[in-house]
């Protein structure tokens, strides 16, 4: 069959790509954990982040990794405004309302991008996109190695924000007990918007990590968002370590199954995991509550 080197390399590929998946899932799971909603606009917002990175590189000559520093606050602001001024007021707290408002939002965003950028595929050419990091017999792609590193650092940072800062404490308080939090004077609408903003800012980092080796078109985010859903469900909705481990796991499963089954059927594997987890253990691996 395949030599151990190849299998080991597929494993590494899976880990490295899975780390970026995890980053996308982190935002989604954070939003779920606090607002208890599935954000269907997440994929479209990833596409927005990728376009912003592309614009920064194409118009201002910024390196995609440097662009992350600019795009992250931008995405943070976009996320805050969307939740504070559109999703929050429109849904008036009803679960179905939020579900549908984010779905409507994703359609609006995707088609605004189509109107603005048309359907052409955009890519960024960098010197280092084709660099490899030789690790023994393995040839690891440099952008992927960077992706793995930055994703893990981001997850740790996110964990630190939630556990070590005031806003983090407020977020955790609202997630646990919304009514109680508002009684002790926490502005719930603001905390919701901050959560959404942090979740959206994660996408800016993911966008910057993807662009050196991937492309962007108005529908690109959709390719990643279903995987992100799977990861969130697998790791347990709302669990940050769950998203990180779930992402790495899904990346490895995808890599190994595509090595042995082919990429097409590998996709079914992901959905089957998704369905099975929902049916058997909807709280996922690390989820606290259903």
């Amino acid at each position, binding site marked *: 069959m395949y030599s151990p080197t190849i299998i080991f390399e597929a494993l590494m590929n899976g880990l490295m790509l899975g780390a970026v998946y995890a980053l996308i899932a982190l935002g989604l799971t954070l939003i779920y954990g606090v607002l208890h909603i*599935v954000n269907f606009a997440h994929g479209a917002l990833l596409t927005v982040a990728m376009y912003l990175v592309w614009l920064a590189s194409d118009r201002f000559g910024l390196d995609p990794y440097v662009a992350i520093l600019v795009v992250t606050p931008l995405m943070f602001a976009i996320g805050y405004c969307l939740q504070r001024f559109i999703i929050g007021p*429109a849904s008036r707290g009803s679960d179905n309302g939020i579900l*549908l408002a984010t779905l409507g939002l994703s*359609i609006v965003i995707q*088609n605004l991008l189509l109107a603005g950028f048309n359907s052409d595929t955009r890519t960024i050419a960098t010197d280092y996109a084709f660099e490899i990091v030789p690790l023994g017999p393995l040839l690891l792609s440099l952008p992927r190695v960077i992706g793995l590193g930055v994703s893990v650092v981001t997850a740790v940072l996110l964990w630190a924000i939630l556990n070590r800062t005031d806003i983090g404490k407020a977020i955790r308080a609202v997630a646990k007990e919304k009514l109680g939090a508002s009684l002790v004077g926490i502005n719930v609408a603001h905390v919701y918007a901050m959560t959404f903003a942090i979740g959206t800012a994660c996408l800016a980092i993911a966008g910057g990590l993807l662009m050196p080796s991937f492309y962007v078109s108005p529908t690109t985010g959709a390719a990643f968002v279903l995987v992100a859903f799977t990861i969130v469900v697998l790791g347990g909705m709302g669990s940050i370590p769950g998203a990180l481990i779930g992402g790495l796991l899904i990346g490895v499963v995808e890599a190994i199954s595509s090595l042995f089954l082919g990429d097409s059927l590998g996709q*079914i594997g992901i959905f089957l995991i998704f369905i099975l987890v*929902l049916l058997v253990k909807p709280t996922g691996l690390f989820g606290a509550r259903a």
Partner: protein
Amino acid sequence: MKKNFEFIAALAFLGVVGIAAIAGLPGNILNLLIFMMIIALTAQGWNVLGGYGGLSSFGHAAFFGTGAYTTTILQTSFGINAWVGLVCGVILGAAVGAMIGFLSFRAGLKGSYFALITLAFAEVLRILANSWDFTGGAAGMMVSINNGFAYLQFSDRRWFLLILIGFVAGGLLLTRWLERSAFGAYLIALRENDQAAQALGVDIFKIKMQAITLSAAITALAGCLYVQNFLFIDANVAYGSWISIEALFAAIVGGAGTMLGPLIGSVLLLGLGEITKSFSGGIAGVDLVVFGIILILCVAFAPNGIRGFVADLWYRRKSRGKAM
């Protein structure tokens, strides 16, 4: 009384459309009306589960596609009559609904979880239909052109539109029955508060199962009729997320959990789509941007859809009139 009035008004509207079609409409209008009716029927199916039962499915494509593939395969591979194919398509679509319902309701899924799992089932079916040989794989399948009532294809499409109008009217009747039946009352009860309904002795699992089966059957019927009109399907058409979204859009914008909602929604949305397309100056996507904004506005300002919005205004005016 009000419900009666609405029912009669909807039938009258369908009647006028039918008469106008017989009197002669240009082909492009006829085509649009046919598509509106197919979407209306799909949304009527969604409305039973998502509107009355409050279980928002994001994967009604699973039922639409099963109906469409069943009748196509039976006709092309086994030479079975189109009407028999249609009945089988509806039955199989309902069976898929029952299966998905059994698995997800047993696990107690609702809300976002239910939306996600329906989406995942539809995606699995899409990938399978795209790779299996007996569904024609990625090449899709064609129903051969044979005009005549027995083939459910007509060289004069006015007949096909009339048949569709008949099915949509049937959907209205069914919803009217639902609103008056004990089953409908239980369904609404579990939408409002499933734990309370259960405490009162309603077998919510059974009610949900019945609702998803009925809902899937109606949407599968729409899938069968889609094939009879376009004579071609592939995995992305039959099981693609577009139809799931179209169904949910039409029902919610028109008024989820109301008899008229799906019909109003599909007529308005598709009509509006044609209008924005002609004003959008050829810029891609503008019509869909308008769609998305309408959905958000509906969620924000008309949670009961256009039908609910209009009914509220109507009711307020009337009650004010009585009070004075």
